[in-house]
C-alpha cells in the first residue's frame, strides 16, 4: 500500500514544498525513514507510533518505509510529525483510498495524539502555497499567524483523533472566515513601555539626534564619558519606534520562526536587540551548524544596539560591513547558502578614551595621545564610514538648571507625522515640485549649496561626508515638513558629523 502527502520544510526564511511517500511492505516489523531526515525527524517515529496508538488505531506490524522527497535536501523540524502520521494512516484501512493531493499538512504530535503548535508557520504555509497547495491542515494554536496570509484555506485542528475522523468522512472544518482580520490591527499602547524619554535629565541634543535618526533610520554613535546617559537614552528607543506594517511583521515573524524557538505567534513590535559585547561573530551575523539568523537579522526593520562597541570582538564588528551597506547577509555553510534580510539601524555607544573622560568638562583624563588613538582605532574607518551620525555627550552638571525633557509620546508623534510627510514627498506627484538644486538626489536651495561649498573650502568635508550631511539634513527637513533643504537644516546636520570635532583635538 502506498500514499503521498504534501508538506513543507523551511529553507532559510523561505518555505519549500516537499512530499512524504509512505509504503507498507510485507516483511519484518520495522519503521524506516529515508531522505536526509535530521535527528528531530528521526525521533518523530516514536511520537507518530504513540499518537496513532493513543487514538485507538492499530499500528501496522509490517515493514513501513517513508521517504522524504526530494531525497537530497536536508530536512529539519518537528512539524513533519503530522504528515508522517497521516501518511501511515493513509496506507491503512482507516483512511484507505482517500486522495490527499490537494491538501497540505503541518504540525507536531504529542504522544497522546494532540496536535501541538509549531514555530515558523508562515514560511511553511508560503512553501506549500508556492508548491500549489492552498488547503492546509495545521495546529489550532497557530491559526492566528495563518490569518496574515491571503488566498489559502486553513483547517485548524487540535487533536489527531478529530482530524482523522473528519478526513475519513471528508468533512474538514474550515477556519471561521469573519475572524480573519480581527487580530491584524494592532494599536500602540503607551503603558507597555517601561521607560520614557522624559526621565532623561538634560542631554536634549542627544534626544534631538534620536528623533532625526529614528526618522531617517540613520546609524548612530553616541560618544561620552561613563555615566552621562548614553545607554539610558539608547534603551528608551523602543518607546519612539514607529509601528510595523503588516508585511514587515510577516517578514520578522518568519525570521524569528527560524531562529530556534524564539517566539511562537506574531511579532508585534519593531525589534530592539542589545546583545552583550561577548557575542561571537556567528551570534551577530548568523551561521553555525544550522545556518541560523544572527542578531542583525533579528534586528531587521528595527534597532541593533551595541553598548560599548569598542569592547566587542574586532571580527564581530568588522563582519557588519556588508550587512550595513546591503541590508542583507549571505551565509554559506556545509553546502547550504542562505540569505537573511538584515536592514537594521545600528545604535552604538563608546567612551572617547580608555579612562572615558577625554574632552570632558570634568578634566579627569590622564590618557596619552597614543592610547586614545588606539582606543578610537578599535572602530575601523569602513565601519565609521557607515555610521551616519555621531553625537558627543558630556555628563550633565547637576547643579545647572535644565529645561524639561520631551516625552516619548511627543517624539513618537513627531516622527510619525514626519514619516507620513516623507512618504508623500517621495511619491511621484511631489517629486517635481519646488525643485531648485539637486545634490545627492535631494533638493537644496542656493544658500544651502553655498554653505556646503564653504565647508568644502575650509577642508572640513570630504565628498563622502557631503553625502552623509545631505542625508541627515534631508531627515531634519522632513521633521519640519519642508520640501527643500534649507540653510538651517545643513547647519544642524553638520553637528552630527562630530567626527570632525573629534579630529580637531588630534594631530
Amino acid at each position, binding site marked *: 500500500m502506498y500514499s503521498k502527502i504534501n508538506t513543507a520544510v523551511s529553507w532559510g526564511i523561505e518555505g519549500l514544498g516537499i512530499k512524504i511517500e509512505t509504503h507498507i511492505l510485507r516483511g519484518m516489523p520495522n519503521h524506516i525513514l529515508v531522505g536526509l531526515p535530521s535527528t528531530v525527524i528521526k525521533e518523530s517515529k516514536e511520537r507518530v507510533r504513540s499518537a496513532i496508538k493513543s487514538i485507538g488505531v492499530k499500528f501496522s506490524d509490517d515493514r513501513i518505509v517513508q521517504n522524504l522527497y526530494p531525497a537530497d535536501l536536508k530536512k529539519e523540524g518537528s512539524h513533519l510529525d503530522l504528515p508522517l502520521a497521516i501518511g501511515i494512516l493513509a496506507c491503512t484501512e482507516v483512511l484507505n483510498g482517500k486522495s490527499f493531493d490537494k491538501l497540505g499538512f503541518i504540525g507536531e504530535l504529542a504522544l497522546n495524539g494532540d496536535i501541538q503548535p509549531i514555530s515558523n508557520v508562515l514560511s511553511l504555509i508560503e512553501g506549500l502555497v508556492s508548491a500549489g497547495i492552498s488547503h492546509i491542515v495545521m495546529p489550532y494554536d497557530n491559526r492566528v499567524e495563518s490569518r496574515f496570509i491571503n488566498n489559502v484555506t486553513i483547517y485548524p485542528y487540535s487533536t489527531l483523533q478529530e482530524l482523522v475522523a473528519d478526513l475519513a468522512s471528508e468533512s474538514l472544518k474550515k477556519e471561521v472566515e469573519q475572524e480573519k482580520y480581527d487580530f491584524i490591527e494592532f494599536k500602540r499602547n503607551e503603558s507597555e513601555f517601561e521607560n520614557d524619554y522624559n526621565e532623561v535629565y538634560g542631554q*536634549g541634543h542627544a534626544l534631538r539626534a534620536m528623533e532625526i535618526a529614528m526618522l531617517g533610520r540613520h546609524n548612530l554613535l553616541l560618544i561620552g564619558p561613563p555615566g552621562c546617559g548614553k545607554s539610558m537614552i539608547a534603551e528608551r528607543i523602543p518607546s519612539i519606534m514607529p509601528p510595523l506594517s503588516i508585511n514587515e511583521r510577516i517578514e520578522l515573524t518568519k525570521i524569528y520562526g527560524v531562529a530556534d524557538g524564539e517566539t511562537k505567534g506574531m511579532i508585534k513590535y519593531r525589534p530592539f536587540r542589545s546583545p552583550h559585547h561577548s557575542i561571537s561573530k556567528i551570534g551577530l551575523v548568523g551561521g553555525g551548524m544550522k545556518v541560523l539568523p544572527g542578531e542583525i537579522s533579528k534586528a531587521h526593520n528595527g534597532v541593533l544596539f551595541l553598548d560599548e562597541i569598542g569592547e566587542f570582538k574586532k571580527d564581530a564588528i568588522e563582519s557588519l560591513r556588508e550587512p550595513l551597506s546591503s541590508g542583507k547577509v549571505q551565509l554559506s555553510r556545509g553546502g547550504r547558502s542562505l540569505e537573511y534580510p538584515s536592514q537594521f539601524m545600528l545604535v552604538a555607544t563608546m567612551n572617547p578614551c580608555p579612562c572615558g573622560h*577625554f574632552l570632558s568638562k570634568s578634566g579627569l*583624563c590622564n590618557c596619552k595621545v597614543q592610547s586614545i588613538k588606539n582606543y578610537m582605532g578599535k572602530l575601523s574607518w569602513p565601519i565609521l564610514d557607515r555610521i551616519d551620525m555621531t553625537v558627543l555627550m558630556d555628563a550633565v552638571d547637576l547643579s545647572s538648571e*535644565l529645561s524639561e525633557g520631551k516625552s516619548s509620546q511627543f517624539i513618537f508623534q513627531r516622527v510619525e507625522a514626519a514619516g507620513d510627510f516623507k512618504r508623500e514627498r517621495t511619491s511621484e506627484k511631489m517629486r517635481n515640485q519646488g525643485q531648485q538644486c539637486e545634490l545627492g538626489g535631494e533638493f537644496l536651495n542656493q544658500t544651502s549649496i553655498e554653505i556646503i561649498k564653504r565647508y568644502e573650502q575650509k577642508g572640513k568635508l570630504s565628498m563622502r561626508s557631503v553625502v552623509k550631511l545631505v542625508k541627515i539634513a534631508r531627515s531634519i527637513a522632513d521633521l519640519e515638513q519642508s520640501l527643500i533643504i534649507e540653510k538651517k537644516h545643513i547647519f544642524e546636520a553638520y553637528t552630527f558629523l562630530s567626527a570632525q570635532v573629534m579630529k580637531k583635538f588630534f594631530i
Partner: protein
Amino acid sequence: MQNYIINYWLLEESLLFSAPIRKNILNYYSDYNHIKWRHLLENWKDLMKSNVACPFSEKELQDVRARMVDQLKHYTHENRSILTPYSQYFSNVLKNSHPKVNLIYAKGDVNLLNSKKVAIVGSRKPTAYGRKIAYDLGRYLAQQGITVVSGMALGIDAQSHKGALDGGGQTIAVMPTDIDTVYPKTNIAIYNRINSSANLILSEYREQSEPKHYHFPLRNRIISGISDLVVIVEAGEKSGTLITAAHALDQGIPIVSVPGNITSELSKGTNRLIFDGALPLFNFELILELLDVKPQIHKRLSVDLSESARIVYEILLKRKKMTLNDLNFATCLEYSEINAALNELILEDLCDFVSLDEIELT
C-alpha cells in the same frame, strides 16, 4: 655677509680640514668674515707652526669658492635667506649662545624675528591636559598678535603651532633637520600650513638628511634664544624639554612653567621648575603682563547672522563659555535651533567647541 657665509661653508664643510686646523685658522682671523684665503695660503707654515704644506692650491680654492657662490643663490632666492650674526635679525642672546650659533637658514617672513615671540615647548607624548593647554595658549597668543615659537615635534610642539595657526596668528618652527625636510613625517600637514603662509621656518642645518640625535638639544638653544619668553607645558623629570629650560636659563630668557597634577609623571618636571624659581602660568594673561603687551578687545561682529545665531552669540558674549544645556535654558531655543546657530557661528570662526558639549568664544 656673503663673504661670511661662503667662508663658513669653505672652512667648516667643504675643505675637510681637521678640527685643530679649523680652530687655528678661526683663532687667527677671529671671525669667518675676516678670513683672507690668499694670505692664509702664503703664510700657511707660519700660521700652522708646522712644516706640512697646505693641501690645497690657490686654483682649487678658487674653484670651490665659485661653486659656493652658485649654491648661495639656492639658499637666498624667493622667500629663503641665511641669517648671520651680522644680520639685524640676529639677537644678542643668540650671538652669545653656547655652543655658538654661526648660521641660520630661514624660509618665510624673517620680519617675524622682530616681533614679540613666545616659545611653547613640552613633551612629545603629552596628556590631554598638556595638549589642551598648548593648543589654547598657542591660539590665545596668536589672537593677541604674539608669535609662537616651537620645534614642530609631536605632542606639545605640534599643538602649539596648530593653535597659533587656528587662531589666525603667526608661528616660527625651528627644525632639527634642514628647512625642507619634514620631521617627524606625521606633521606634514602642519609643516605645509606653516610653509604656505606668512610664517617662518628656521634651521641650523644645510644638508637634507635625517636628524642626528645631537641635533635636538642644539636646536633647543635656538628656540629659547630667539624668544622673549619660554613656556614649558609638560615635561618629565629627565626630559629634552628641560634642556630647553637650561638653555633659556643660560641665555637669561624668563621661563614660565605650567603647573600640573603632582601625581602626573609629565608634570613632575614643570612643577620642579616652579620650585626652582620659574613663574607658574596661572592664567594666560600673565604672559601679556610679562611681555608688557596690552590685551586686545574682542572683535566686533561684522557678518550677517540668522535670528537664532544672533541670540546665541549675544548670550555667549556675556557668559564666554557655556554648555549646550546652559544655552538651551538661557535662550529657550530648541536644540535643533541651537545646533544650527552654533554651526553658523563656528563657520564664521566666532566660537568653537572646547570639550564634548561646551562652547567658548574665540
